[in-house]
């Protein structure tokens, strides 16, 4: 089974992806109650991510609303073969959050370097309602991150949490662009291996 097929079967805290896919089909048919159900299932994960990126509850709420609205409007563009619905939603949300970070940066010319990092993330999920499966995945990802060399981890953090381009990361870190590209690619490749294994093991 390839990684995308494995990812399709994964849904961390809210049951199987099959239920999400069924909701997406109903959304395509303009069933707004399915949108409500999808919202109930994923609002927390999405809000957690965009709040962590933006550090602003009001903006995070805006992004959540925009993301689910886009899910409604663009539901037909969702392809189950490319990943879980949750992955699709989080990707949309992160993209919108990064757009806001970039706009914020353009307007303030503020420095985002160093504001975020994987070290910010708690070692255990603080919410007791989180299911064991979700916590286990987080630990797997964290372990994979911890095994990355510092220089690879650094460029990954800058790219993931701040949306800096590779050129901007090169400028910020004083490293040649080619070096940044190599480090980022290696980090991604190393990271996806344990994640893929984890997803496969969950089946």
């Amino acid at each position, binding site marked *: 089974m*390839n*990684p*995308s097929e494995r*990812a399709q079967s994964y849904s*961390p805290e809210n049951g199987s992806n099959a239920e999400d896919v069924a909701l997406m089909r109903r959304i395509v048919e*303009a069933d*707004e109650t399915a*949108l*409500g159900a999808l*919202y*109930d299932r994923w*609002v*927390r*994960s999405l*809000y*957690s*991510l965009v*709040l*962590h990126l933006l550090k602003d*509850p009001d903006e*995070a*709420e*805006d992004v*959540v*609303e925009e993301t*689910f*609205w886009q899910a*409604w*409007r663009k539901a037909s563009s969702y392809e189950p073969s*490319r*990943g879980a619905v*949750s992955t*699709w939603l*989080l*990707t949309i949300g*992160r993209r919108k959050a*990064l757009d806001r970070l970039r706009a914020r940066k353009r307007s303030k010319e503020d420095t985002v370097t160093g504001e975020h990092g994987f070290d910010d*993330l*708690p070692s255990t999920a*603080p*919410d007791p309602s989180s299911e064991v499966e979700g916590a286990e*995945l*987080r630990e797997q*990802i*964290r372990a994979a*991150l911890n095994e990355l060399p510092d220089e690879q981890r650094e460029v990954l953090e800058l*790219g*993931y949490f701040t*949306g*800096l*381009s*590779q050129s901007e990361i090169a400028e910020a870190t004083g490293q040649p662009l080619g070096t940044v*590209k190599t480090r*980022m*690619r290696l980090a*991604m490749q190393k*990271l*996806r291996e344990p*994640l*893929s294994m984890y997803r496969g093991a969950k089946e």
Partner: protein
Amino acid sequence: MTRMTHEEAFSELSAVALDTASADVANAVRKHAAACPECGPELAAMEQTVALLGELVPPAQMNRGRSAGIRSRLLMRARSERESHSAPVPGPPDIARGVASLTGQGSRMTPGGQRIVTGESKRVTPAQTPNVPREMIPVRRSVNWYAIAATVALVITGAQLFRVTSDRERMRSQLAQLTPADTTKSPVDSLTLALSQKDSMIAAMTGPDVKVVALTNQGARQPLGRMMWNRSSNDWIMVTYNLRPPKPGMTYQVWLVTADAKISAGTFRPDANGNTFMHAKYALDRNALRAVAITEEPEGGMPSPTGPMVVAGAA
């Protein structure tokens, strides 16, 4: 950049997966990856990895009242879109947050989607989502909305039209009286813009497809407000007069009542004289409106009506 070699594309895969590449580069990489047996699966795997990283963040709980408000707005917008022939239309919708659109001052409104006639609506409460847990929201279903609304007859809104028309004529006169020396960019632009707004307002309030709903209550001899709905342009204009201020901590909330829903249309607070003037665009099926009602609700508004109905009118 339209074409990339395999090596070029491969070196940009992680940037594309992280969504940090420029649009040109991302398009070129995706074009290459779509046909490359090595880059295609690699990019897909990286994108999934990036998405899974999102699940590392500490769980955060949105304010329950705000979350309920967002959910409610999403469903209202979705329902509205479905009812107005459902097919998604290109570009942003006219309103971004249901009721807030009608106030023209919602904090999450789509930029450019609303117009406010300044100087006539002295203060409009930003339509924040309510800070009230969902389970604390009682819905009073016993209110007989239709019975009360049905007691109201429709009237023509000559007074409002006269007022806006007079404003427009005054502005045109001012513009004509400006000498060439006066015609610096700023005042001319300002007057022209204001004139344009008045023209739009008049267009929205007139025409064969405007439905007018008089708003009153059982004790009032005169209407306490009117809602004008231009069903061709989807312009909604609401005026109120002689409305008492809402109680402390409360606000007025407008509802568009259809056969199966009460669609929140925004919160507002009248000025010191009890007057309000609001303008918004909102698509609604031309035959869907049954009534318009205003209730008194906790500051920020509610997903569904809970408070006493102040005024209403049958459509």
